[in-house]
């Protein structure tokens, strides 16, 4: 455990190990996303109530999953950075934030598109939509705070603190929005077919979720690698590496 944490301190070691891990996740992401989307969009049976429009689920649900787990991983990375001063964790957190915000937006947008055929409106102040919108604002806050500092060290620590504060608040916000929704608006629409979903619909969804996660890991590894090169650009090993490749 400690040996592993000590190794993580070295950007050079991470750069080497991620070079081997990265292709695995890219291949996994490509295969899973291809299989999942073809199966889900072309072969899975249409929903008996929603028809073909339910197929948005294959983008909507994985994006929503990622949106939430990226924020949690960002906060965990922030904690690791604050406690053990591991720079890699902060670089990864910085690289994750825009992807998390993008995924939150994708899930909101696909939800809006899905809302037109099922609810007959682009936007509803539904509890889940509202908490996702707030999550998007939390992401934008973390990104903006990181960008506002001129000193990179302060920016990293401030963003870590805000991510941790945010992650404590996410469940509170979620439950209070649920409470608010049940209090102010009777459930006029419920998303049907959530509990009982047949295997043929469920399996491609699972594959898509796994594919989205692989894509997230692969992209984060790639972006963290280039961030390592950028931040360590005056170190000897990076110069040697770039010299070699030239």
């Amino acid at each position, binding site marked *: 455990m400690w040996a592993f944490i000590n190794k993580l301190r070295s950007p050079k070691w991470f750069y080497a190990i991620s070079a081997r891990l990265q292709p695995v996740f890219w291949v996994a992401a490509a295969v899973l996303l291809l299989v999942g989307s073809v199966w889900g969009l072309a072969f899975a049976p249409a929903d008996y109530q929603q028809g073909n429009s339910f197929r948005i689920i294959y983008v909507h649900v994985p994006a929503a999953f990622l949106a939430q787990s990226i924020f949690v991983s960002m906060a965990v990375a922030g904690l690791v950075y604050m406690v053990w001063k591991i720079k890699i964790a902060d670089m990864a957190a910085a690289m994750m934030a825009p992807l998390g915000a993008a995924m939150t937006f994708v899930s909101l947008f696909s939800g809006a598109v899905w809302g037109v055929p099922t609810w007959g409106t682009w936007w509803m102040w539904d509890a889940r939509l509202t908490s996702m919108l*707030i999550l998007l*604002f*939390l992401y*934008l*806050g973390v990104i*903006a*705070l990181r960008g*506002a*500092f001129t*000193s990179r*060290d*302060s*920016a990293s*620590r*401030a963003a870590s*603190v*805000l991510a*941790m*504060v*945010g992650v*404590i*608040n996410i469940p*509170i*916000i979620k439950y*209070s*929005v649920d*409470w*608010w929704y049940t*209090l102010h608006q009777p459930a006029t629409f419920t998303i049907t077919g959530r509990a009982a979903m047949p295997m043929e619909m469920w399996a491609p969804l699972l594959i898509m979720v796994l594919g989205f996660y692989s894509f997230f890991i692969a992209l984060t590894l790639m972006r963290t690698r280039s961030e390592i090169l950028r931040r360590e650009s005056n170190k000897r090993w990076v110069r040697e590496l770039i010299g070699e490749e030239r």
Partner: protein
Amino acid sequence: MSGSESHLSVNDDRSVSRREPGGGLAVALWATLRRDLTLLMRRRSEVLNPLVFFALVITLFPIGISPDPQLLATIAPGLLWVAALLAALLSLDSLFRGDYDDGSLEQLLLTPQSLPMLVMAKVAVHWLLTGLPLALMAPVLGIMLSLPAGSYLILALSLALGTASLSLIGAIGAALTVGLSRGGVLLSLLVLPLYIPVLIFGAGAVQAAILGDGAMAHLAILGALLALALMLAPWAIAASLRISING
């Protein structure tokens, strides 16, 4: 010989300071409270501005929406709460700004007393001079919005409880942005999403009081939120201040 004596006296000093912190903390807390109160009372406009802002925003709504008392009465709880929340937000930027500019914030960080506790004293002053006056003023504006009778006490209570949480949560944002020259808009972006649970239960308490049931449950949850904020926020504020000062 004289060297060993001075060595002894250093040891003595240390043992004295080791025994002291219990009393030292209370003294430091009291000093911080009194200093901040005095400073703010000498700049009264800073205390009054959020209140004037509160009244102004409330004036905008009947002009912008409709002067119809029935319509205003239905939206009054939410309006009063949102306007009070924005007024509290407006006053946050100055919470640590003056101390940061004149360097006394650095002195606060250097004191041997626990920083989270000292920060609590500053937040308490902020609540005493913004949250509490807003809560006391809200019923008057409630009359202007023809808020239904019987909800006035709950309105003031919910605001008094809620603004304490708002001050604590907002202080985290203020501490994070105090080192930035133009942190104002960023501060609202950071803090407003975190204010939403307090807004929901605060406005909900007033709604419940109008409907005649369940206001106490809402107030209890507001109290729970405050307890949670009291427990966690001081540490986050202290850590954020350290980041802002070192950066």
